[in-house]
């Protein structure tokens, strides 16, 4: 991890020499085993840049905030699609962005890592040993098998080396996803339930949604200037808005079903929505359901079409006759 | 190339020479034929005209065997070929039948096997490859390629254009034969009707022979045991019935390919014909 971190710092320094105005990467977080988005605006700020298996954030959407600046961004394999999607939908001007790819050996589940490491040990170095991450701490060395410590999304990952980047750092990472894992396994389990059981499954989850909108704010496919769910209508027409602000089961379900539908065919599968949810709603189960259906029904969407719902084939499966 | 080989019943009996020529030519061309283990009758004629289920189940078993062996399969006999192709279609398109057959045979068919006619298999190695093996060009052989009706029909199931098949023509052209354009390439030979509707069948045979001869053919190449039998063994009866005087040898196409590749005529079973092919063989220097 050290090499990549150093490369990042060097590349950032070079780019600032070449007129870069903003570098979006990661820095270490305020608590152990945590990283967070980092924004270097000048040459002197590049030393804080890091890359380690806690850099789970997808930084692509931050690009939208700097419409006029020459910006560089660090992407992992699962983030690269988001840049592509944002460019495709005209949220970004690709020419002013430098996309820097990093090879990813998988991201670690922080809670599990902290439980494994000694309580007051300080992490001094992390090395990727293909099947495991080796942590050097002030209390000794700890080998964390990837199989046991990676995030669930990394275990079904098929794209841990980014594509479409301007600059790729380091060597290509070997695959991290476990072969033979069906990404749709859980979706299929839920689909196999009978409707009341399925409803109960979702109601329990949806009932605890806070509507904090973290899932929306972080989602690179939720790129609307103003989300339909924040459009307020004043006066006597107040009822005629898309969604009530009340946080009730029907409204929560409405929000999540429609959000999933709005990103259908546009979701890049980065899993950020699920990560940021403070009440642990497995939102990717919705996105994956749609992705599976789209794949089954329509196959890949041609590159020149904005999304699967913006096109059709006369021979599309007809389940309505 | 490795491929499963389903000879079918005829090639074990009346059409032994077809089998022999096939194996020799295949070996010569580097095609490794693996006989399907414990294969059974494809159900041609008897089963498919009486019992729809059996008509699918009999060939299905052979397909399952091939699938278990992990091989595609090549079929020299036109009738067997058609039965296997149709069974494959039934099993992959009709879920109910597939289920029933799987139950009966105790195993499912996953539809992985591709079924090729011998024509396709040989053409599959490439016409250039084939031409390169020719040591005895069949220059003097004026041959009419006769496909019969089962090999190319029904459309979508056959191995070539149902109206104007070209595969055998191409193979024999590669062997430098003079391949003739004629009108009865894919007409029916009467098949087993020779037993029940003798005169009708003889007339069909007569038409085929006449058209070939009129086109200038001195021999006919075929790819079906029953066609060969009808055209070869019934020429005398045709002559008697219609007052004609046909004496045109009927070859299995691998016999001719074998000749072109320099194999011994005797090994190719060329001594087993009713109509003596010697003149034709001589003509090509065999």
């Amino acid at each position: 991890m050290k090499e990549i971190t150093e490369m990042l710092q060097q590349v950032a320094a070079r780019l600032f020499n070449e007129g870069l105005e903003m570098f979006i990467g990661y820095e270490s977080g305020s608590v152990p085993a945590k990283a967070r988005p980092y924004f270097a605006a000048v040459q002197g700020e590049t030393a804080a840049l890091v890359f380690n298996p806690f850099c789970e954030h997808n930084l692509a959407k931050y690009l939208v905030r700097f419409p006029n600046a020459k910006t560089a961004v660090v992407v992992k394999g699962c983030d690269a699609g988001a840049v592509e999607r944002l460019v495709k939908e005209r949220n970004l001007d690709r020419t002013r962005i430098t996309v820097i790819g990093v090879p990813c050996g998988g991201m670690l589940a922080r809670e599990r890592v902290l439980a494994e490491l000694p309580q007051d040990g300080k992490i001094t170095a992390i090395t990727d040993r293909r099947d495991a991450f080796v942590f050097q701490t002030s209390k000794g060395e700890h080998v964390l098998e990837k199989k046991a410590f990676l995030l669930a999304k990394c275990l079904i990952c098929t794209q841990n080396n980014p594509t479409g980047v301007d600059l790729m750092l380091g060597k290509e990472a070997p695959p991290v996803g476990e072969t033979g894992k069906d990404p749709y396994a859980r979706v299929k389990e839920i689909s196999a339930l009978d409707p009341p059981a399925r409803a109960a499954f979702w109601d329990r989850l949806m009932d605890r949604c806070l509507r904090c909108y973290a899932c929306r704010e972080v989602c690179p496919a939720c790129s609307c200037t103003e989300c339909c769910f924040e459009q307020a209508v004043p006066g006597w027409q107040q009822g005629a808005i898309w969604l009530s602000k009340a946080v009730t089961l029907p409204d929560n379900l409405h929000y999540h079903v429609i959000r999933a539908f709005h990103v259908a065919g546009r979701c890049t599968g980065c899993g950020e929505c699920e990560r940021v949810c403070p009440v642990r709603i497995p939102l990717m189960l919705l996105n994956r359901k749609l992705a599976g259906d789209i794949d089954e029904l329509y196959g890949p969407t041609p590159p020149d079409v904005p999304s699967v719902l913006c096109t059709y084939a006369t021979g599309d499966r007809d389940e309505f006759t | 190339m490795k491929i499963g080989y389903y000879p079918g019943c005829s090639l074990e009996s009346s059409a032994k020479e077809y089998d022999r020529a096939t194996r020799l030519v295949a070996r010569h061309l580097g095609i490794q034929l693996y006989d399907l283990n414990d294969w059974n009758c494809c159900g041609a004629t008897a089963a498919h005209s009486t019992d729809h289920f059996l008509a699918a189940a009999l060939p299905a078993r052979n397909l399952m065997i091939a699938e278990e062996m992990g091989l595609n399969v090549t079929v020299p006999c036109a009738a067997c070929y058609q039965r296997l192709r149709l069974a494959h279609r039934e099993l992959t398109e009709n879920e109910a039948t597939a289920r029933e057959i799987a139950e009966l045979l105790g195993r499912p068919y996953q539809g992985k096997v591709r079924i090729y006619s011998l024509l396709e298999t040989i053409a599959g190695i490439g016409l250039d490859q084939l031409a390169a093996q020719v040591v005895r060009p069949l220059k003097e052989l004026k041959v009419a390629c006769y496909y019969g009706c089962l090999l190319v029909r029904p459309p979508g199931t056959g191995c070539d254009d149902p109206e104007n098949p070209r595969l055998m023509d191409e193979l024999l052209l590669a062997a430098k034969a003079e391949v003739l354009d004629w009108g009865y390439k894919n007409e029916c030979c009467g098949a087993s009707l020779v037993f029940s509707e003798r005169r009708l069948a003889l007339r069909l045979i007569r038409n085929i022979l006449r058209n070939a001869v009129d086109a200038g053919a001195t021999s006919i190449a075929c790819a079906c045991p029953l066609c060969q039998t009808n055209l070869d063994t019934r020429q005398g009866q045709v002559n008697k019935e219609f007052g004609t005087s046909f004496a045109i040898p009927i070859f299995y196409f691998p016999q001719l390919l074998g000749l072109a590749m320099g194999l011994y005529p005797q090994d190719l079973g060329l001594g087993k014909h009713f109509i003596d092919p010697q003149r034709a063989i001589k003509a090509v220097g065999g």
Partner: protein
Amino acid sequence: MDSKIIKKDKLLSLLERFIAGYHVLAPVREDGMLVYRPVGIPGDVELNPGRSVLPPKGRFFPQTEILYSYRIEGEKLTLEEYVEEARQVILFGVHPCDLRSFAVLDAVFTEEPRDAYFTARRNNTIIVGVSCSSVLPECFCTAFGISPVEGNGADIHLTDIGAGAYLVEVLTPRGKELLQKFDSLFEDNVAGAEEAKRAKEASLIKKISLSVKVNDLHEKMASIFENPYWEKISRRCLGCGVCTYVCPTCHCFDIMDDGAGKAGERFRCWDSCLFREYTLHTSGHNPRHALAQRLRNRFFHKLSYNNQRYNIEGCVGCGRCVALCPVNIDIREVIGAVRGLV
């Protein structure tokens, strides 16, 4: 007031009796998270809970609350208000930081003009506090003068003093009244219980890694209102409402009507100052159009305005926002940074 001892098995019996006679809200574990839920089985309750994902403020200030409904019949308009009727609710298992948050909310809702809805719920609730048994990396309650073992704000307060025993402190007459009914379950206070509690306090405080000084902050902050720091820290902010919704002291709400035809209702629901439409005017003008302005507002509210307005700190150091912020915006760092700027 009084203090007693209760053994762990008896504590479960006590909960069982609570459940039999009252509506009990207590922390339970759900998908690995602690949440306050109405409980029916004592065994479900986490007795040494740790930090709940949402603070217990929802008991007094629900995320969505119908204020009243209306119906028009002919010329007649009928209104029905939904102030909670007197009912006895026991809110069990509240940690000292959250206990302090009730005081912060009280300052907002129960001072004049009094909020009838909040006050009714508050009055209907008996609070059972519980001392912390562990310290999480994000905890910093001591910065606000809170002790992890003190039950100020609770009616009854429990502290696990080891060996399967809990110290029960009865802090209000209401608490006393409640426990009287179940006297048989308690033992008299034994020697060493208070010492055990102090020892626990010391060990917990030692574990709170970060100590920040806050009490003079509100006076100093005015000078850094325009500091570029706010823009910088807002760069990674998503603008979601996690920090405000998990905050035990955040209390902003919006009031909306939902009606169709001749009937409808007015409800209020939590709002977040991080949301764009929080300050959006009908005209389309937004005085806090930039995320930096909104984030700054939140920190000013927590660290300055609340103290100015209500004379009580707006943050209790529970660490929820630190733990749950998807991009690790850490109020302790902000406090440190602010201190460095002034």
